[in-house]
């Protein structure tokens, strides 16, 4: 029998005897006989060595970033992760613990959540942050729900340059009621189309949801737009890449009411897009409406400083159908990763990584713009991603040929936007050296020549 099961045959028979039965079957007489099954049609168990071999073989069938040089981004990014992060996550005391409901038995988790909340609030420029949502997309959808509830209105404006999966998730989350979702286009430079926005912005709007850097990698200035949004009593929800906040203003600093996004850039491997962590930060006015868990500082019976889950009256385990959100399990361990990552980086490291990303993508953008047959699509400032158009060779041809160079050369933008069938979304982070980027540029030159 499995090495994960401590009961011996003797234990089992002794325990059954203690229970006054002769066989296990007698314990489950409440289960109607015609519902019982005698066997499962799944393979026999494998020993650890066989299992390791089999699983490793599956892993090795994939091409990872060790095999290919990747320029893929679009909401999931390859970043350097300091060794300390994985080592702290691998502490059994952290990863095999439950949600910290019993404060006395969970001070470790609770304090790290408090530290995470502190650092995420600082990075985004908001007043407070929850302990995490599932991912960036579902956090954004929950922000839409919060805004609808808070304003008691029924319309949401969404920037069309918000990540397509995020827009789709908002759509799915809101489809249970008669809410209206209106998409706002982008302008030539890649910024939100202000004319269309102003035409749509009225007192029925609960929130405008925008992204910066947006899906095309363009960093936007929403300061004036936020004022307009506030004038009609709506909320501004900003989806941001947290690592960009090392260099660019955080959403709280230009007036956003809710900052959400994907925290994967903060020390979490890509892992095919999950598990990572959605973050959710708000201004004080929305404190009692934020979804998910919050850790707060207090004192104990003896006056010692300590931490506990707080403002739980918002949550489903107390409020049931009246709760603002149904979230229970979140992405706590990845919030711990972000916490350790941000502690290790500090303000200097975060700035440095952010600047490196910016300079690296800027260099790549400039070099690629000089390649014959390529042009940069949007002129706005970018962070670590940008869009190029291939005028002569199809995107699928480019991608096919890049395989020979062992390069994943960007995301086919036509997958998400039919008007960009001839475009690639390209990302460069601190994982690439100048030589790496030059290799990519040279490969593109060869392919397009």
């Amino acid at each position: 029998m499995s090495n994960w099961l401590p009961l011996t045959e003797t234990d089992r028979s002794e325990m059954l005897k203690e229970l006054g039965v002769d066989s296990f079957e007698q314990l489950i007489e409440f289960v109607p006989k015609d519902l019982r099954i005698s066997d499962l049609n799944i393979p026999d168990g494998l020993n650890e060595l066989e299992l390791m071999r089999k699983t490793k073989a599956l892993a090795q069938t994939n091409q990872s970033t060790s095999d290919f040089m990747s320029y893929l981004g679009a909401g999931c990014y390859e970043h350097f992760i300091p060794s300390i992060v994985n080592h702290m996550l691998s502490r059994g005391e952290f990863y095999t613990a439950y949600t910290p409901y019993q404060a006395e038995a969970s001070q470790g988790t609770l304090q790290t959540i408090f530290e995470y909340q502190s650092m995420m609030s600082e990075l985004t420029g908001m007043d407070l942050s929850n302990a995490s949502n599932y991912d960036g997309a579902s956090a954004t959808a929950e922000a839409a729900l919060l805004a609808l509830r808070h304003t008691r209105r029924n319309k949401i404006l969404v920037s069309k340059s918000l990540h397509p999966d995020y827009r789709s998730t908002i759509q799915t989350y809101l489809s249970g009621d008669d809410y209206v979702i209106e998409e706002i286009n982008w302008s030539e430079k890649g910024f939100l189309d202000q004319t269309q926005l102003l035409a749509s912005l009225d007192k029925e709007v609960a929130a405008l949801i925008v992204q910066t850097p947006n899906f095309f990698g363009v960093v936007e200035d929403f300061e004036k737009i936020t004022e307009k949004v506030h004038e009609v009593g709506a909320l501004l929800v900003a989806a941001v890449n947290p690592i960009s906040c090392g260099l660019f203003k955080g959403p709280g600093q230009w007036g956003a009411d809710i900052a959400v996004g994907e925290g994967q850039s903060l020390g979490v491997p890509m892992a095919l897009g999950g598990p990572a962590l959605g973050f959710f930060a708000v201004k004080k006015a929305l404190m009692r409406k934020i979804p998910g868990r919050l850790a707060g500082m207090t004192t104990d019976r003896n006056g010692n400083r300590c931490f506990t889950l707080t403002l739980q009256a918002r949550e489903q385990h107390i409020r049931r159908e009246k709760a603002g959100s149904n979230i229970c399990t979140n992405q706590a361990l990845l919030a711990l990763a972000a916490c350790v990552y941000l502690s290790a980086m500090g303000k200097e490291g975060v700035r440095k990584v952010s600047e490196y990303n910016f300079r690296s993508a800027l260099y790549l953008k400039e070099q690629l713009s000089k390649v014959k047959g390529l042009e940069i699509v949007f002129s706005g400032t970018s962070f670590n991603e940008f869009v190029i158009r291939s005028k002569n060779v199809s995107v699928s041809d480019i991608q096919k040929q890049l395989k020979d160079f062992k390069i994943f050369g960007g995301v086919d933008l036509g997958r998400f936007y039919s008007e960009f069938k001839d475009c690639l979304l390209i990302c460069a982070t601190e994982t690439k050296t100048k030589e790496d980027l030059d290799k990519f540029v040279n490969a593109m030159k060869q392919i397009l020549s």
Partner: protein
Amino acid sequence: MNKETPLVYELSQEGKKGFSLPHSHFDSSDISKLVPESLMRDPEMDLPSVSEPELVRHYVNLSQKNFSVDTNFYPLGSCTMKYNPKINEDAARFDGFANIHPLQPEDSLQGIMKLLFDLESSLKEITGMDRFTLQPAAGAHGELCGMMLVKSYHEARGDMKRKNVLVPDSSHGTNPASAALFGFNVVEVKSDERGRVDLAHLKSLINDETACLMLTNPNTIGLFEDDIQQIQKAIHDVGGLLYYDGANMNALLGIARPGDMGFDIVHLNLHKTFSTPHGGGGPGAGPVGVKKHLIPYLPTPLVKEEKGVYSWDEDIPDSIGKLRAFLGNIGVLVRAYVYIAHLGREGLKQVSQDAIINANYLKKKIEEHFTVPFPGFCMHEFVAQAVKQNDLGVHATDIAKRLLDFGIHAPTIYFPLIVAEAMMIEPTETESKATLDQFVKVMLTIADEAVEFPERLHEAPFTLAISRPDEVKAARNPILTYKDYRASKDNNGSSSISTTGVPVHAG
């Protein structure tokens, strides 16, 4: 043990650093020449500056302030705190699983796609369902997905008046919350004197406005809903659907299948039954399985296989859409795959058998001292009540806190809501008889203490770094960040210490 561990901020000192990063060899011109001033951030951000050895000690010290499955017996009912196998952790960290991007070409992802496809096949077989989406990130996310499927199903049939979702009064809080979040009207079904769904009450509530019934089986009291065949018939007769909350699937592996019981939709908590770690609150995974008639509405994409080649199936015209970005909590799915592959069909069966034996053994051993409200054998968990102790002024919360002194994590308390002074105990199959016997001994000691010095128990625990945090103060003047803390120090008033325990806990 230090009672107070400094905040990482309090370790910070200008000039220290915890990172080692490459130098940029790109354009080195002044950043202010490259970034418009209106967008640029002031570099003075309040993040700590701490060296790596200090950080390691800080976080390891904090970890040691936790109870965990690796260090303690953790009989937290409804949460299935079983052992988290170490090979799972190794596998999820393989380069070929950890360092792959969701938008890579399909031919570069065949290994992980096969794993996901095979995991889906196993889950179908274990539950008796026809297809699974692996996208939901947690149980509640799966429930929300389920509610969306219910709505799509009825509306596709032109059946527009199905506004009611029924949940038993013993259900998890997420059930009514998920239904309400998606705009359904929640109707509560009473439990009968046997701790099961009151069939007569259920029948009086259902009609052509019934969208579905959400049911946990075995239910949150640890009892098998033995009327399930009548329940399913009643619901289906009025055109409703039956939703299975899989939080308690650990009781049924290889014994019975929700699909055979007539459930139309099932979610599983891979972080419960399938051993993926709880991570201090997450991540989990809540795959949702459906019967044939609901497949057209599943979220996109699904994994498809043709002649040994795997691809993403995005072509699901009636799909409810996306529940999140990309594909799911893949690292969690890898762990569950490894778990199933190791145990195989015999092992999985043994898992549920041992879980049931362990729970019944504990129940039998403590029921003389702690009231067990419903007679008969339980499944993988049971609810006991601190009723006798309540008469002495000792509450479930006091017993829970006192258990911590003995190195045992508290059971789930004050849940389900229909049982007074509830303590929900779930030992799981990965605990030895010796551990169970020790638990019994401790519970009996506490029962004695409740008689001898009831007042003292209000102050438990005595041996941990902290005892009884002031919840009222935490909620009245919330300090949620280091910034709040510094502000509060500037206007520090005296504080009243409350001895009330933590409220309801439920997985």
